[in-house]
């Protein structure tokens, strides 16, 4: 570690331009992205304009100050003057900044109004944040899915080498067509999140119970990455956003595929409803599902985090009240990080994980839950 740092230090000393001394120049991004929408380009230009004005102000003010510091030193024998007010000067440095501000406000207001464009969108996507994943629903096509971080826990804990898109990769990215006005309706299931994609210059809070909207019109196909930008609890740092912008034709193909997949999954679910798992099958599937979805809070050993996330091991719900157990998994618990899994997992997976939780870590209830039990809990008997 230290030696690696030594190398960086050596590199810094050796090369006047820190950024270019590295093999991975892209790692030294210093400035805001220009992005891939007209708005993001406007925002970038506005940012640079503001930056230049601020630098100019700083140069003038610090210039005068350093001049005085150097030439009006006591050690150089400077004798103090006695002036201590001048109405003219003071009016000047009240009025001039005011004029500069007006010049800053005009382009800012223009961009702001451009952002509020109210023309009808080509496509609307409902974006829902929850602790700690995003859910996307295409309003016109009915396609919907959850998007979770794909980086493995072992990478985070240093047991595996970190991949190129460490913490900025998801299992199912959002896909949008290019050159179309895509409207995002942003809301939340629990606490406040913020959906931020720098390349679109879109950052909008997801408030529970309310919808906010934002829109983007991406000009280039590509993969655009962002992150949640409002503290939302323990795994706030681990809920990235990935958007893939595709040509219209590719997008159409993709959305048809998604509809297909959705339809097949429904069929499969119906088929599995009729089938019964054995205890071993249920435990094996259940463990996998548990580790992927539940272990982050309830911990792999089922003991939770005292005072924060309840233990499942030996808990009332996981050992006695089976209907309640299923209800909690399907619908979540309001006011806690326990969310509704009815739409996130298949009925078979839910059945398996309930079975697993009721039999692992010494919760030996012997209960075996089947997909059809879950079905009746969702749809009524």
């Amino acid at each position: 570690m230290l030696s690696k740092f030594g190398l960086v230090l050596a590199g810094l000393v050796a090369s006047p331009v820190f950024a270019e001394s590295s093999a991975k120049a892209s790692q030294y991004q210093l400035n805001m992205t220009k992005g891939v929408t007209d708005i993001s380009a406007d925002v970038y230009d506005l940012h640079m304009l503001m930056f230049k004005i601020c630098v100019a102000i700083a140069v003038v003010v610090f210039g005068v100050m350093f001049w005085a510091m150097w030439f009006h030193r006591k050690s150089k024998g400077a004798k103090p003057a006695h002036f201590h007010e001048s109405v003219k000067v003071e009016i000047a440095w009240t009025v001039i900044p005011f004029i500069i501000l007006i010049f800053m406000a005009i382009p800012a207001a223009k961009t702001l109004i451009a952002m509020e464009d109210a023309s009808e969108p080509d496509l609307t996507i409902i974006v829902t944040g929850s602790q700690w994943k995003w859910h996307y629903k295409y309003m016109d096509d009915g396609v919907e899915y959850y998007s979770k971080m794909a980086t493995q826990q072992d990478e985070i804990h240093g047991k595996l080498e970190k991949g190129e898109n460490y913490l900025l990769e998801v299992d199912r990215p959002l896909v949008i067509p290019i050159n179309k006005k895509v409207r995002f309706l942003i809301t939340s299931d629990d606490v406040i999140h913020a959906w931020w994609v720098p390349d679109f210059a879109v950052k909008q809070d997801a408030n529970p119970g309310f919808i906010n909207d934002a829109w983007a019109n991406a000009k280039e196909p590509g993969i655009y990455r962002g992150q949640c930008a409002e503290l939302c609890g323990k795994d706030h740092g681990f809920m990235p956003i990935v958007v893939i912008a595709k040509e219209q034709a590719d997008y159409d193909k993709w959305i048809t595929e998604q509809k297909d997949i959705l339809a097949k999954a429904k069929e499969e679910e119906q088929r599995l409803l009729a089938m019964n798992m054995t205890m071993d099958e249920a435990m094996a599937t259940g463990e996998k599902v548990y580790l992927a979805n539940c272990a982050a809070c309830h911990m792999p050993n089922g003991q939770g985090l005292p005072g924060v996330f309840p233990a499942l091991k030996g808990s009332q719900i996981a050992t006695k009240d089976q209907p309640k157990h299923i209800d909690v998994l399907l619908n979540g618990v309001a006011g806690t990080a326990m969310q509704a899994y009815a739409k996130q997992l298949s009925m078979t997976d839910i059945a398996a994980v309930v079975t697993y939780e009721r039999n692992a870590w010494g919760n030996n209830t012997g209960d075996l839950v089947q997909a059809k039990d879950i079905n009746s809990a969702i749809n009524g008997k």
Partner: protein
Amino acid sequence: MSQMPQQNKKMVIKLVAIVVAMFGFGFALVPLYDVFCDLTGLNGKTSNTAAVYESIEIDESRLITVSFITRTNTGMAWQFAAETQVVKVHPGQMSQINFTAVNPTNRMIVGQAVPSVSPGPAALYLNKTECFCFEQQILQAGEHVTMPMRFYVDPQLPKDITYFTVQYTLYDVTSAEQQVALNRG
């Protein structure tokens, strides 16, 4: 020096009065905020009392796309949907949308729907004469219900708004205390 403490006391009383008033002002911000929302459509809040439909002129020249989103909050077991997801209406024209709710559980649940409109300013021009969101809904185990929502768009709607979305989020409000007890369990 002798009248100094007297003078101090007077001043302290005045300052404490300011403190108390500002503490009260903190709470006064709650209703003030609601008034502010009503005036500006901040946050897309809609009025939670029924509007009265007066025979107003229907603006045939404009067609507004109104879409509906239904969601259930975490912990709410109901299935909740709008029978029509998108309607096109003329401002001033009365429309009805039916929403369905099913309680699939084996217990009684009380639901409360909370509306939100986007873009926010449109909320000011959405007038609901009848809405299930005005009051709590009670569904017995296994019960189905169809809930009508009647509304019209105020013809005063600004010209640049051509579409808006209304979202209803259903919350389980069966018993706040019971909920808290369950969360702790």
